């Protein structure tokens, strides 16, 4: 392994992959190109670059993202790279439909009607808004961002708008879901509740598939675990080495559980604060309080993060920390606990909403903590993957003890559907892999 490590040049690898993707996109003969991107592998950078090159080549381009925040983010990135580029932001007719920052960009035109944006080099909107666009000339090219989080029926609604498309997304994150049962269509190639990429590839298996091989976000301490646990057949590397990132605290540890787990995570990239085993309600008050204390101490101890981005350490402030939970009521409980400790400006959200975001340190309430059972929801691979792959420096997991036993008591029992490709690894496997790694960074604590 040492020899491969020595010759592996992440920058060159990434460039090679990007070049191949752009070649297929701009000059390929296929109608679609699929790009799998692990967490933090420069997906947005790729989308922006592909958009600029397609626009340069004079091909009218539509970009389909999944949320308004993603759309606004892409518009801002495009304008940052090329302020001259005429960009259209198609938005809904609700109040405050887009980020106010877009109003300062002279070459970005905003409208709720696709007709007003005709002729612009790039038009960007959400899949939901695009679905309402009717009776226009199809675009020559489209980029579909977060395609693995887009449902097949959403793609069905917009696929008539473009001739060819580049589909970019992270297969390891949360699959799209439906709020009603959809077993009726399980196994059909066009199951409307499946992901857009699943349907696309089922009907067009010959499309070229690429993947980005380097995660620039995940530190060297996290990439091997996330890759092995969630992407066993499509491994990736971190773009930085072990000594490239450092997290240090000005205030020394006071010996408490939260401080010890913070030090462990600062040192190794991972920390598991383990509370005594107990069945609890979803909003486990002890775990929530422990989590809030960890966040409070992270802020109080004068953290500083050093990375390849700048020679000087950047202070670890509230906007560089995020808390991730499985359920919304857990997020609400954490928010109010943080507000009581005066740390209300730290981002707290569910895995679904944290997708695509990046922080220096994340603090995660384990989805299975305190549960008497392990349901498909709590075992979902993508949920754990999102929670364990948002950080640049360290990830601290708060959990009740006994999850390995819980997993052993609840093997996956989902019915097998004919014609459905079984996803590997399953949540059970991935949970075990992550837990066994976390157990090496365990700090038992009785609050």
């Amino acid at each position, binding site marked *: 392994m040492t020899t491969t490590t020595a010759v592996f040049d992440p920058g060159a690898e990434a460039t090679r992959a990007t070049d191949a993707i752009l070649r297929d996109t701009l000059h390929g003969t296929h109608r679609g190109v699929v790009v799998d991107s692990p967490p933090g592998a420069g997906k947005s950078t790729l989308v922006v670059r592909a958009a600029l090159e397609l626009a340069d080549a004079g091909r009218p381009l539509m970009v389909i993202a999944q949320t308004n925040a993603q759309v606004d983010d892409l518009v801002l990135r495009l304008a940052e790279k090329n302020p001259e580029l005429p960009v259209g932001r198609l938005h809904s007719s609700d109040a405050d439909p887009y980020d106010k920052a877009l109003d300062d960009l002279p070459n970005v035109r905003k409208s709720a009607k696709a007709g007003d944006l005709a002729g612009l080099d790039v038009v960007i909107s959400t899949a939901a808004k695009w679905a309402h666009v009717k009776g226009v000339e199809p675009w020559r090219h489209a980029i579909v961002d977060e395609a693995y989080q887009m449902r*097949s*029926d959403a793609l*069905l609604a917009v*696929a008539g708008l473009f001739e060819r498309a580049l589909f970019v997304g992270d297969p390891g994150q949360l699959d799209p879901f439906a709020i*009603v049962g959809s077993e*009726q269509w399980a196994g059909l190639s*066009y199951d409307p*509740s499946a992901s857009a990429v699943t349907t696309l590839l089922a009907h067009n298996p010959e499309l070229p598939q690429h993947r980005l091989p380097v995660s620039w976000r995940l530190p060297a301490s996290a990439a091997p675990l996330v890759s092995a646990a969630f992407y066993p057949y499509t491994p990736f590397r971190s773009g930085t080495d072990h000594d490239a990132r450092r997290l240090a605290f000005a205030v020394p540890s006071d010996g408490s559980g939260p401080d010890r787990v913070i030090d462990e995570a600062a040192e190794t990239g991972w920390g598991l604060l383990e509370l005594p085993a107990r069945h609890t309600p979803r909003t486990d008050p002890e775990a929530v309080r422990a989590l809030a204390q960890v966040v409070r101490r992270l802020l109080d101890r004068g953290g500083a993060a050093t990375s390849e981005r700048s020679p000087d350490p950047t202070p670890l402030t509230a906007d560089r920390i995020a808390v991730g939970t499985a359920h919304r009521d857990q997020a*609400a409980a954490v928010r109010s606990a943080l507000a009581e400790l005066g740390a209300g400006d730290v981002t707290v959200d569910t895995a679904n909403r944290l997708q695509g975001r990046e922080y220096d340190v994340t603090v995660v309430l384990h989805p299975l903590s305190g549960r008497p059972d392990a349901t498909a929801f709590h075992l979902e691979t993508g949920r754990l993957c999102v929670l364990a792959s948002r950080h640049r420096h360290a990830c601290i997991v708060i959990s009740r003890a006994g999850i390995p036993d819980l997993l052993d008591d609840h093997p996956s029992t989902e019915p097998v559907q004919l014609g459905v490709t079984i996803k590997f690894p399953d949540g059970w496997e991935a949970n075990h892999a992550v837990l066994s790694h976390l157990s090496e960074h365990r700090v038992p604590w009785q609050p």
Partner: protein
Amino acid sequence: MSLIATLARLEAVDTGRAQPLATVRHRHLTEHPLVFVPLTTAGEAGAPLGALVGTDRDAPRLLVVPQPRDRDLRFAFLAELAAVVLPYIDAYGQDVEAAERTETDPGTGKRVKVEVELCADAPQLIVPSRAGIEFVRLLGRSMRFRRTAEQEPEAPHPAPPHVPLLGRWLTHFGERARVPGSALLLALTDVLSRHWATGQSSLEDQHLGALLAWIDPPPLSDSLERGDPHERGDPHRASSGAEAALRAELQRDSRGQLLCPPAGPATDPAFDNKLLAPAIERYDRARTALAAAEDGLQADDRLGELTAAEREIRDLVESRTRPTWDAVWRGLDLLRALPEGTHAADRWTRDRWSFTGHRDRVLAGEPPQPRRDDAVTAANKLATREREQARLEAQEALDDPLVMAGRRLAGEAFAGEVTDVVMAYSESKRPSPRPLVTVRTDDRPHLAERAKVYRSLGGKPQAAEYVEGSYEEDGADTGGMSIVLRIIDKMGRGKEPETGSVPEKGDRVCFTLFEHEQRGGAKLPDPEDTPWTHGGPPGEATDPPADPVTEEDTL
């Protein structure tokens, strides 16, 4: 499971009685539902053993297949079933009222109103449990591609007339039952457990007898009559739900048979092995003997034996379906005692549209529902069901304070008293009223910055925007909360809001974080325009081929 449902279950365990989950009935029940209690044969999917069916609780029609593996007898059963169900359905198809529907004019592409017929009421099928709905679907699937002798005179094993049509109707009922809030085909256990929480698991709630025992336990004297020697004491004291449920699940008579037979369609193995199998064997022997009869006199005797054997199977089937039949009607009585929720009628109107639509498709001579949905149909169905699910959740909360209490407990709604109203206006050329309303509540809504909230104003949703919230002095955990909202619509066009459109100080109000009405989704392409990502157009719609006859069909 929501927190309030968990609490109700705990209370049920504690008190021994099911606890209400609703104060009104959230599903429409028609005057004359058709109750269908089917039984199936163990070991062979879709082989009916018999059924009780009808609209009169005192006079069910008993249909039996004495040898379930005999395809001719099975077709005879299905033909009899069609003779009961189809006239019931047809009666509703004939009574229509005029209605309007918006359609896209094929010539101009404009949306225009068209005058159409809407059936004044619709048929309603009630089965005992969720497995019954699956069985209805299975029967529908097994029948709708059959061909009658009239359709294909040359083909062997033609289906009796009306059987394919019954298959199409049962398929429609089965498919409609997947739409949240629909009531064309209801599983009684589902409806009962929507309205009551028992002290057992939701899986156990699928046992109709046990579920009813929790909701309405029989008096002890009843269980004494049923021969339970352990029960002594005041015969008029109602037994506890838990005990009664256990009895319903487990108690057997001296012959080892369950006193409360499962609601089916699957039967109890002890019944299959000890009673049914020997009876069917006697029937088979009698039939073979009759076929081998050498003269008329012998044939007469043997026909008598055959009839007796058949009679025995009929009695057995009736003995296993009748308790369920009575239980279904008892369950319906319990449900009818609840007043119907306001929006249940709206949802029933959608069921009527669904029924009318299928009636029209049948009348127009369209082919049966395809074996598999195409990409566009599947996506449309999923979108409709998701919309109906959201609509159902909102409507149930608006109709029922107990359901709303659950949403409030989950932080999705809040109720309280208006403590202050300050008039304010929007900053535009023509300022419109944007009054600030302060609501004091003990609830803990999960309000995000500028979140929209809604209240019902004369049946229409009025929207407001969350401005700020503050906890009262005595700490975040115990005290109330004051929430300032900015009302943003439904106040008329004038500078001053219309009377009654803004809450006043002292008013009790309830705002929800979820929307009350659902927006229609985007229109999907027509199936013939299915894009390349989804395999392209499905091709010419052809009459689906009949199911091929397999070896198993002619055992």
